[in-house]
């Protein structure tokens, strides 16, 4: 459980404004979705939240302490991030990769304990990766790689999950299974999530609050119901959007 407060955050990249004076609190069990056009700065914003990108102004407090004041390892025990891509040039198997998720935690330096291996086995099983455990990372398909990265994040067991395009490369079955899994963790461990995605329907299905980045530092922030309107989405994405209801879920498609 962790308290995460973003106060008056201004983020820029290459002198382009991503958000200006953004404030919100991420409380346990919150799931916030970040939406916006390609290149609007969703990933950079997530990088800022884990101190991989420096904010122009404002502060980010984790349990009443600025995130810059945390040593990397202590921060990694509280905040975990799923990146859009990771390097696979250097050889490693799926099992070796997901055990790296335990790196921030205090562990035996010389060998991976049986508890950790058992934990890894169960994570592999939930993501249907058991069969691939000894496969080289660079021989996996995009979706399998994505699940391996997610598995490493689940091993990390942070209180705050930052997910950059979690549904990337995943087929519809896994999109739902993976996010259901994360929702379970959120419920059980009082965790919280900020996820950036280009998939409006996925965000609308899982997130209770939405940050809609409009470009030039403007944004809308609020509950799903208040932010996800066709007007707002048309403004953010610059195209006509239709809203409909399929099987009791609100869905948005380009007109």
């Amino acid at each position: 459980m962790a308290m995460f407060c973003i106060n008056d955050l201004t983020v820029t990249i290459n002198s382009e404004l991503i958000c200006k004076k953004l404030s919100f609190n991420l409380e346990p069990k919150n799931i916030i979705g970040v939406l916006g056009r390609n290149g609007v700065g969703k990933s950079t914003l997530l990088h800022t939240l884990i101190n991989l990108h420096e904010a122009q102004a404002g502060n980010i407090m984790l349990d009443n302490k600025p995130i810059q004041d945390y040593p990397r390892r202590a921060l990694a025990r509280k905040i975990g991030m799923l990146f859009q891509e990771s390097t696979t040039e250097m050889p490693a198997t799926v099992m070796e990769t997901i055990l790296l998720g335990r790196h921030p935690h205090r562990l035996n330096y010389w060998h991976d304990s049986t508890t950790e291996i058992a934990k890894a086995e169960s994570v592999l099983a939930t993501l249907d990766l058991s069969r691939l455990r000894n496969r080289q990372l660079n021989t996996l398909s995009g979706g399998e790689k994505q699940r391996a990265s997610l598995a490493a994040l689940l091993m990390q067991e942070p209180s705050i999950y930052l997910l950059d395009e979690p549904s990337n490369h995943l087929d519809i079955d896994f999109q739902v299974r993976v996010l259901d899994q994360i929702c379970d963790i959120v419920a059980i461990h009082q965790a919280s999530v900020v996820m950036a995605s280009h998939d409006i329907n996925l965000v609308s299905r899982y997130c209770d609050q939405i940050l809609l980045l409009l470009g030039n530092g403007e944004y809308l922030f609020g509950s799903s119901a208040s932010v996800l309107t066709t007007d707002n989405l048309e403004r953010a994405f610059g195209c006509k959007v239709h809203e409909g209801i399929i099987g009791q879920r609100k869905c948005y498609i380009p007109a």
Partner: protein
Amino acid sequence: MQPRRASILFGSLTLFCLIALFLSLTVGSVDLSASQVWRSLFASDGSMEAQVLQELRVPRTVAAFITGGLLAMAGVIMQVLLRNPLADPYILGVSGGAAVAALGTMLLGLSGYWVSPAAFLGAIFSIVLVFVIAGSGRAWSVSRLLLTGVVVSAGWGAVINIMLTTTANNSVQSMLFWLMGDLSQSRLTMWHSLPLILGLGIGMWMARSLNVLSRGEMVAAALGVEVRTTRNLLYIIASLLTASAVTIAGSIGFVGLIVPHMLRLLGARDHRLLIPASLLLGGGVLVLADTVARTIIAPQQLPAGVITAIIGVPAFLVILRNSSRTS
């Protein structure tokens, strides 16, 4: 890697090193038996066997082992630092700087005593040069470091070629020997084992971070690695290991590139295993290569660097073939 497989790996590597050391001590212009070696190793009777062994073979064997170990460990670290499996210890120009300085002493006709110190200073100069240029401005990135190193290295290459083409014939051969890597001129002191021990210690201490860093800097930072400090330290360590190796034996090729890959293909991808294993295999390979280099067309000697490639290429290709078949 499971503990059982790891012990098999280390068992075989140790055996390989012992065989290489045994051959290196027994084979040569005077062939010695195992019992002669054993008797003469600590004998102070001034016999010919004792002299050959104590003054020639032991120092040369130890120099070869240290150099090989240094290069292989430097290769492992450099490959992680640059996230590039094709990186070798010389890719960032350390050997080029050393070569220009070493060849410079030969060009000036200074005595052989000056070659090693000059090589070390040249290497340090190149390390600092690349670091300062790549690190200037805030955008320190792997590709920037790699580009800077490769370009500086190419610059050194040009200077080396000028030296070679404008030099009178008689010193060209010693220059070429130095460039290809040669252990016959190395003067071993106790100090040479220091970088090996330091490199092993620091490498083992950073092994877990190396594992994480292999997945990329962003991922490593998110998993708790202080990336900036770590990569600066890795650059310095890998460069100093290389500089030490080059100072002992010139630029011996191939060991630093291929030994890490051989071990990875054999399953030692975890740096907690890979660092010590590469020390053993690198050391053993170079001891063996040097033994071949000084005996195969005796009394003439070949540069050890040539032999490392001749032994290493087929051995590597066989392992590559087998590993692609099993996976």
